[in-house]
């Protein structure tokens, strides 16, 4: 791993270490497997949120259809797991053994062609990336080449989410319908349900998450990251500096789609479940909210936002099931009205200065940090 002052500035380094400590050490040691698995579920949304930081926070492209990509990734993974769970001996009570149970219920007697690739894990992993990536490429090309942006783009992505949900629910013979794909059991013969498997999957997911964090951070620090910022502010100026703005938007949107898809695949693995209720408009907007709460400009903030909002959702709905919608609604409004930069903005405005003041007294010992990070051109958090 390349962690040096060029790659992260000081406060980012602190954030990185704190997050790594929390996810790799503190949570696994302090939570039981059930809660740890919940954290794993929350973190699947962190992938989406990181993508949204790039695409929305940096690129200024608000997508209300991230559930589509989350769902596509998740369904790809779930299809593989479902096929494995639908071996002939597991399904011998069906009229057609060897196909997923919901197909049998819908009088489908042979595996449809588009299910065939999901016999292979390698192909599945490729498709988890490629299907959402290509789908985003098509939507992105159609929209951005024609300069559709802002609210229009948001509404159209929302419509896409609605279409896909109706389609998945309606084509239940091929997709499991509204029930989704349940009862996912093994990955290459390895049972994903027992506690020790959940722990391993958790760590696998956290590793992958840090991979995505580093990738996002890398993108952010290249000239491409700065062009995204530039584009959000002065799209015309970027265009008249010789860049094809549409291509950069398409790239950001595709990256966000791929991140979301990875999150979806992790969801299917960790939760053992995939359903159209993660594809539609409501989950898609919630994913945007995680990002907004964490801070739309901050990669680490996005991870925190996804964890905290989901944690609040779980605990509020456990203690005040009738009231948690009030809390959630108020949170959205508060974040938008009072803290547009989310938690990371609060941190940068209130906490960071205090830490800096504390450290200022010992500044002579730390002379190399701040200046070089400015030279490296890290945009403001």
């Amino acid at each position, binding site marked *: 791993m390349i962690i040096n002052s060029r790659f992260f500035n000081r406060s980012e380094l602190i954030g990185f270490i704190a997050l790594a400590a929390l996810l790799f050490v503190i949570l696994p040691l302090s939570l039981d497997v059930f809660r740890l698995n919940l954290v794993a579920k929350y973190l699947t949304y962190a992938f989406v949120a990181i993508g949204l930081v790039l695409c929305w926070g940096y690129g200024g492209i608000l997508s209300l259809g991230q559930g589509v990509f989350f769902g596509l990734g998740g369904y790809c993974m779930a299809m593989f797991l479902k096929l494995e769970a639908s071996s002939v001996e597991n399904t011998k009570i069906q009229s057609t053994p060897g196909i997923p149970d919901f197909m049998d219920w819908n009088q489908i007697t042979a595996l449809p062609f588009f299910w065939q690739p999901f016999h292979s894990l390698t192909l599945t992993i490729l498709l988890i990336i490629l299907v959402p990536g290509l789908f985003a490429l098509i939507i992105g090309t159609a929209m951005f080449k024609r300069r559709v942006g802002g609210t229009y783009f948001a509404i159209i992505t929302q419509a896409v989410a609605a279409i896909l949900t109706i389609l998945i629910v309606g084509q239940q013979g091929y997709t499991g319908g509204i029930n989704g794909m349940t009862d996912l059991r093994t990955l290459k013969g390895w049972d994903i349900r027992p506690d020790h498997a959940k722990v391993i999957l958790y760590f696998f997911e956290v590793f992958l998450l840090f991979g995505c964090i580093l990738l996002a951070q890398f*993108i952010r620090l*290249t*000239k*491409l990251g*700065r*062009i995204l*910022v*530039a584009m959000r*502010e*002065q799209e*015309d*100026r*970027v*265009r*008249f*500096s*010789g*860049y*094809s*703005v549409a*291509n*950069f938007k398409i*790239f950001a949107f595709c990256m966000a789609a791929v991140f979301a898809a990875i999150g979806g695949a992790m969801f299917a693995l960790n939760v053992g479940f995939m359903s159209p209720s993660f594809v539609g408009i409501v989950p898609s907007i919630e994913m945007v909210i995680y990002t907004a709460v964490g801070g739309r400009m901050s990669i680490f903030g996005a991870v925190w936002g996804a964890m905290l909002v989901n944690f609040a959702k779980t605990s509020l709905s456990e203690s005040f099931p009738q009231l948690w919608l009030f809390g959630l609604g108020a949170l959205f409004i508060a974040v938008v009205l009072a803290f547009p930069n989310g938690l990371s903005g609060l941190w940068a405005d209130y906490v960071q200065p205090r830490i800096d003041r504390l450290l200022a007294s010992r500044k002579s010992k730390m002379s190399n940090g701040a200046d070089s990070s*400015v*030279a490296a*051109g890290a*945009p*403001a958090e």
Partner: protein
Amino acid sequence: MLIGHQPKEFLLAVEALTVSFDGFKAVNNLSFYVEENEIRVIIGPNGAGKTTVLDLICGKTKATSGSIQFRGKELTKLKENEIVQTGVGRKFQTPSVFEDLTVFENLEISFPRGRTVFGSLTFQRDAAVKARVEEVAEMIFLKDRLHTYADQLSHGQKQWLEIGMLLIQDPDLLMLDEPVAGMSVSERAKTAELLNRIIKDRSVLVIEHDMKFVEDIAHKVTVLHQGQILSEGTMEKVKNDPKVIEVYLGH
């Protein structure tokens, strides 16, 4: 650029250019020609279509009909970024710089390398880039502010920064929309000095209201009125054209 080397070929040839917005012809059957290394100033009353002409050349607005040839290439068929890559640079009326980026980063973005998605992912800030950025920063009086975020700059400094961003592109045709508008007297003088330095070795198309400034720099002046050319020629000729006098003083 074979065509460019042929004699008597204009750098920019605008012919029969028309654009209409909802039936209103902002630019109407306009033709004019700019030669290599020429400094052309476009003047005219408000609403004459000056900015629209620049918009049309740089591709921001699509022409309804007519042609714009730049070094023999038809610009009306190209996208904005392709037009930039053929060597046309454009400065906007209001300073448009990236306020969330530093001066250095602003200039670096305009450096003509790594303009594709993957090019920009693999772009390295090497010695050549740094040297060029510093060189231009010096020209635009911002050498000691390289690591300042652009939102901290004064209005005039932002104008210079934007001019600097164009310089780093090294365009063959530089289009400036009111480069000294809103500047203080001292800034104005410095800008004139800056412009006089950078207009060497390239053609420049300027929109400007400040007549003194125009007189200082213009080789040739085009007067636009209601989307059409009212008069064209040297400053002296234009100033004495009765039609121009009527338009400017008649109102």
